[in-house]
């Protein structure tokens, strides 16, 4: 069963000419990471907020775990769904610990359980609890605030998490660090995540599947690789930069293109690259080091070799 299923979901705001979301139908598998991608104003936030009923659809139904989301009381529903809003939205008058404790507290967990959970969550997002527990949001950097926002969304142990441009307000380097952290978390937790962004690189990096939107319509729903390979129309092609070879290489793992080690292989100084790196990283290493061959490794163990020629061949 899908964790979230949109069935002909539309939203028309009163006194607004165009439709914010038009007839969205797609299903999100349990434990998958789905990214909503599209230009500003295309309806991403609206679509997201209809899941936890901060916005009610004009028509259509959203099913959560097979159940019509309107069957549950809205506040009860929201306590079961993690939510990271576009502007972070930490409560400035509460400490980090109090912010993270909100949902468990609303769910009436015991004091001990909450305290343990707060520490667990802070450790999970790489903020040592002893150091950060009692700080106020104003005493944190933007990136640290984002982490607390994520910890708060995870604290009630929801199966579904909604994230609205959670890394929108931080610099590029911090953003990549936060993306890595989120990917690592997801590998451990297997939540169902709906993640909004208008940054194509971020979407390609994070998504199991992507929903590409424009003017309230879903134009394509597929894996990043399929979308780059076969964009549904010119809008999608241009938005995701499907013609950008390097971008496509970023989605293919080295192990898919490498050759097995030759029998007479000896490792004499060629640069190495882990097998789960992307071909884009491999290309960058080849060009940067000015060599013709990379040694692909699994841990410390050489498992294959990769040349420029193989990367070219894989493209075709």
């Amino acid at each position, binding site marked *: 069963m899908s964790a979230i299923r949109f069935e002909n979901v539309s939203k028309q705001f009163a006194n607004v000419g165009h439709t914010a979301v038009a007839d969205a139908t797609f299903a999100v598998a349990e434990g998958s990471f789905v990214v909503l991608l599209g230009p500003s104003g295309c309806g991403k936030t609206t679509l997201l907020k209809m899941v*936890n009923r*901060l916005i009610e659809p004009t028509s259509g139904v959203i099913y959560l775990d097979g159940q019509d989301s309107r069957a549950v009381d809205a*506040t*009860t*529903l*929201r*306590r079961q769904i993690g*939510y990271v*809003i*576009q*502007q972070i*939205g*930490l*409560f*400035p*008058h509460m400490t980090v610990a109090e912010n993270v404790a*909100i*949902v468990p507290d*609303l769910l009436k967990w015991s004091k001990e359980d909450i305290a343990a959970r707060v520490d667990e969550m802070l450790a999970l997002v790489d903020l040592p609890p002893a150091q950060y527990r009692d*700080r*106020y*949001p*104003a*005493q944190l950097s933007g990136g640290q605030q984002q982490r607390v926002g994520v910890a*708060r969304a995870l604290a009630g142990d929801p199966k579904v998490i909604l994230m609205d441009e959670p890394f929108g307000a931080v610099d590029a380097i911090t953003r990549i660090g936060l993306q890595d952290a989120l990917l690592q978390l997801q590998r451990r937790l297997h939540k169902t995540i709906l993640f909004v962004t208008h940054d194509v690189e971020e979407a390609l990096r994070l998504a199991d599947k992507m929903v590409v939107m424009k003017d309230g319509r879903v134009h394509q729903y597929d894996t990043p690789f399929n979308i780059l390979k076969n964009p549904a129309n010119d809008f999608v092609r241009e938005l995701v930069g499907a013609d950008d070879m390097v971008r496509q290489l970023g989605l293919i793992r080295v192990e898919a293109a490498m050759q097995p080690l030759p029998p007479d292989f000896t490792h004499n100084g060629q640069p190495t690259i882990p097998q789960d790196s992307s071909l884009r990283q491999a290309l960058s290493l080849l060009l940067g080091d000015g060599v013709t061959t990379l040694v692909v490794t699994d841990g410390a163990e050489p498992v294959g070799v990769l040349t420029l020629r193989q990367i070219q061949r894989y493209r075709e």
Partner: protein
Amino acid sequence: MTYILNNPDVILRLTGQHLYMTLTALVISLAIALPLSLLLLRSERLANGVLGLLGVLYTIPSIALLILLLPVFGLNQKSVIVALIIYTQVILVRNMVVGMKGVPAYILEAAKGVGMSGWQSWRRVQLPLAMPVIIAGLRIAIIVAIAIATIGAKFGAGGLGTLLFDGIAQNRYDKIVAGSVVVVLVAILLNRLLITAERHYQKRHGS
């Protein structure tokens, strides 16, 4: 000064009356202002209308307002308390409305999004965040109330104003000084108390 030291019982009694009028008025005023400001938050137009009206009431000279109230409430503390409620209302309501409106919409949306009910969101998020502004209003209201309450002596309400008016009538400079000093002391003391409370809330913002 010697007057204060020689007549501690008089000073104490008058200060008691003064505080009683001021604090009773403020408690009632707060009790009216809180629901009123919540109502005004719902409609911009209503808020402008009501705040405008309260503002006009605020500009009526205190003697005139008291004279208007006398026929209704009599020549006693009641009239003075009602006048104080009217004067402090605009200060309290305006600060409550401004304070609660000042809480960014996205913070309130976050409160809703994590699953707070309307009441929880108000009690746990909106009110505490508005608190510094509300307390600032309370500080001004208290000073205004203490000052205006001195006029109560003219209207049979007692209080520290008695010393001032008696002093003028009897040409007793020492009474005038004593009355002024105690009024100022009371004002400073209450103000200090509220500044401490304000600091407490500001510290909780970590700024």
